């Protein structure tokens, strides 16, 4: 923990007074105060301590807990995890190194948290000793990051007829800004919650769920703006990216991903197909504060598998957009898969890397796309610099000098079925890659799977599936997966760790020279970041579908990943309740929400 963060936290006053009184260790937020109070002085004192903590926080509510300045400097406080991907550059890299190649074999569960039923795709946020998670379908919970004990829980009332066409009832996490959390809901609302209590500050309807809009992504908090995207291309929505005022919930700007007639790119849509053209925006983007550019990946055109209904390149589907975060203006765009007929959304994490390119320092954005190609772009201009296949694909001969795929004829879906790699879920998907500045490697969980693609007639009906076909994926022994380590500049394979089946879980590299990941078979594991050698494995008993993250509390590094219906927090030593982990017990009278 750096001096700066200690000072700033103590200055924030949240737990400082209590902490001093109880001789609590530094850092911490009020979870630490609760833990020490209950452990050392018993139940009654814990109540008092909590009341004081609340009192302090209410009195100090004008003091921002996580201002933009902390978000933009997230790399300087690795004990926290302040955004979905860990930093604005979306590295999903932890600079913590207490857990390393030498001791990771001793990693064990410190605490676990069982979530509401459903698939867990969340990445927790950890700030000042509190962990904020989402549970299926759109619930938010705040946990004591030391013990896992819940502080509050908020569940939206969404009614019984919430639509989610083309994806399961999932949520990938919250954003935090100042003292407020922001969560998108399955019924397409954006809700601001008081971080200390879970009370609603505001609730706005982003779009109409009745025609297929949903929010499953973790919002992205910028300076004075909350950015969200929508799901719904499989229902034939017209996608967009929104920016909201964090204080009021007012819409600041909306940028549609499908141009209307007369706008640039409208000639890439035949007839009225733009109206139901898809292009959803359902995964969190990245941000470069120096260039002041927001990078947002765009989803597939609709209908998915019948391209006859939408002749043209179908901008800006399957694109990466660079936007001015103040206005939403599109500064540049790059399309990975023009006129996509395989459902290959570009909704993968866009990783910002500063590196030397052909002898010159250059600002890059790299991504392993669902279409099985790895791309290196200049993130100031969108210029295509390099691309190469990183997984099995049978649809393109390669990329031309502008990065446009050279499509092999006859690889489109047909009525009788056409076998193509990768499958509709792609070689990559929403699950996170990781970039380690220490190894210079880009770690990509990779799906190696083909599918027989079918085309069918379809007519748009509001609030109904708008697919125009389907697939029958190969499976079992016929498909597989891997964690691939690619040279970040060339996409060249450095090593790969084989998985039994195509994964749905993200990875995280750490300064401990480790890469953490997960498998469908229930493994939560750690690999040597330089060699791929497996060093640790925990059989969690359920499929892993989320991205790992790390934080530190009481000087102890923690690794978090979820499997089945449970989130697991791992660490070294004996953890919560021990001498080195602090005398935290679970018997304190915490409030029920």
């Amino acid at each position, binding site marked *: 923990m750096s001096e700066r963060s200690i000072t700033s936290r103590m200055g924030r006053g949240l737990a400082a007074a209590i902490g001093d009184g109880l001789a609590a260790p530094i850092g911490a937020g009020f979870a630490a105060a609760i833990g020490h109070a209950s452990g050392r002085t018993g139940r009654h004192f814990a109540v008092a301590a909590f009341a004081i903590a609340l009192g302090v926080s209410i009195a100090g509510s004008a003091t921002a807990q996580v201002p933009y300045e902390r978000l933009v400097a997230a790399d300087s406080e690795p004990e926290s995890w302040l955004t979905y991907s860990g930093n604005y550059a979306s590295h999903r890299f932890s600079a913590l190194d207490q857990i390393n190649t030498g001791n990771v074999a001793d990693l064990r569960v410190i605490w676990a948290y069982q979530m509401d039923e*459903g698939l867990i795709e969340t990445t927790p946020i950890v700030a000042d000793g509190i962990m904020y998670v989402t549970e299926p379908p759109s619930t938010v919970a705040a946990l004591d990051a030391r013990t896992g004990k819940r502080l509050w829980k908020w569940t939206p009332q969404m009614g019984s007829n919430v639509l989610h066409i083309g994806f399961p009832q999932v949520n990938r996490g919250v954003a935090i800004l100042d003292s407020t959390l922001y969560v998108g809901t399955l019924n397409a609302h954006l809700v601001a919650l008081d971080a200390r209590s879970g009370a609603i500050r505001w609730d706005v309807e982003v779009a109409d769920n009745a025609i297929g809009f949903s929010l499953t992504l973790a919002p992205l908090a910028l300076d004075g703006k909350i950015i969200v995207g929508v799901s719904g291309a499989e229902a034939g929505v017209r996608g967009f990216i929104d920016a909201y005022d964090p204080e009021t919930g007012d819409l600041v700007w909306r940028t549609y991903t499908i141009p209307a007639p007369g706008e640039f790119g409208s000639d890439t849509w035949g007839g009225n197909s733009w109206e139901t053209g898809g292009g959803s925006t359902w995964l969190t983007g990245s941000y470069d504060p120096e260039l002041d550019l927001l990078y947002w990946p765009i989803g597939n055109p609709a209908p998915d598998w019948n391209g006859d209904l939408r002749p043209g390149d179908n901008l800006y589907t399957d694109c990466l957009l660079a936007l001015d975060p103040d206005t939403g203006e599109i500064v540049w765009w790059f399309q990975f898969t023009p006129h996509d007929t395989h459902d290959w959304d570009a909704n993968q994490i866009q990783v910002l890397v500063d590196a030397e390119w052909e002898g010159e320092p250059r600002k890059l954005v790299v991504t392993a796309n669902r279409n099985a190609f790895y791309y290196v772009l200049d993130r100031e201009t969108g210029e295509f610099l390099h691309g190469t296949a990183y997984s099995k694909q049978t649809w393109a001969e390669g990329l031309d000098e502008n990065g446009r795929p050279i499509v092999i004829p006859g690889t489109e879906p047909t009525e*009788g079925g056409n076998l193509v790699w990768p499958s509709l879920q792609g070689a990559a998907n929403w699950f996170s890659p990781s970039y380690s500045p220490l190894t210079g490697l880009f770690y990509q969980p990779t799906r190696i799977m083909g599918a027989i693609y079918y085309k069918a007639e379809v007519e748009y009906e509001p609030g109904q599936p708008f697919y125009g076909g389907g697939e029958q994926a190969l*499976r079992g*022994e016929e498909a597989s997966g891997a964690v691939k380590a690619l040279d970040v500049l060339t996409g060249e394979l450095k090593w790969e760790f084989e998985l039994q089946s195509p994964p749905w879980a993200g990875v995280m590299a750490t300064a401990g020279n480790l890469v953490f990941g997960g498998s469908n078979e229930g493994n939560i594991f750690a690999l040597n970041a330089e060699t791929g050698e497996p060093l640790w494995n925990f059989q969690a008993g359920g499929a892993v579908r989320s991205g790992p993250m790390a934080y530190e509390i009481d000087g102890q590094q923690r690794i978090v990943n979820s499997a089945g219906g449970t989130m697991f927090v791992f660490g070294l030593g004996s953890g919560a309740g021990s001498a080195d982990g602090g005398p935290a017990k679970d018997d304190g009278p915490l409030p029920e929400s």
Partner: protein
Amino acid sequence: MRIAKTTWLLLALTLFPARAAAQDPGDAAPGLDVADHPRAERLYRAHCARCHGVQGLGGEGPELARLVLPRVADQTQLELIIRYGIPGTGMPGARTTILDDDAVSLVASYVLWLGAQTTADVSGVTGDAGRGRDLYWSAGDCASCHIAAGRGTAVGPELTAIGLRRGADYLREALRTPAARLPIARSGSRSGFFEYLPVRIVTRGGDVYNGMRMNEDSFTIQLMTLSGFLVSLQKKEIAEMEKRVGHSLMPIAQDLSDADIEDLVAYLTTLGRGS
């Protein structure tokens, strides 16, 4: 340790070449009006196929084209699952705005129809089931590796209801050339993977294990050995591992005449059929 996969791919393509386009109205499921079949298929493809596959062979969701669905005792139960989903899984409930009750019923019928297409064809049975039963339980020695009706030893697949799932042609082939087809797991985390896959393992310590894979992940593998022991091994302790795709541990019935085999086929097709 990667397996050559071409064989299985070709098998999959040849086994199900026309399933996706199957439209023979004469095959419509009981309770599914012939005239409704195309609409039922459209509904299935629109609402179910993204996860369960156009052919019902599974994908992100489990295989539906099978005779027995683990959670489904009858059509009503299937309709309830379609309407309300399966909590804790990716299976959503169909909102009333998406599928009305009539549409739910049609989809359920279509799913059951997909399963019914896998019903074993026993039309080619020529042998004597009584003789086959005697052979099975005596000279054939089948019970030393298979459990049927509670009796026998579980090395190979349980045969208690094999007559429902496998037709005469399949059984004949399984007896003559056991390696021609390995069963494929139909549900759970192993869905789509070979079952009874023969594996030979040599550990770093020099121990040799021959058996059938029961489960596997990236770090461990679980076997039933030929001598009936359950073994779980860490892959880091394994020096050599050979997955023998295209092989079966079932012995070829060399001592059996063609007539014997027909009798065994006749007996096996009765198992699970209540006779």
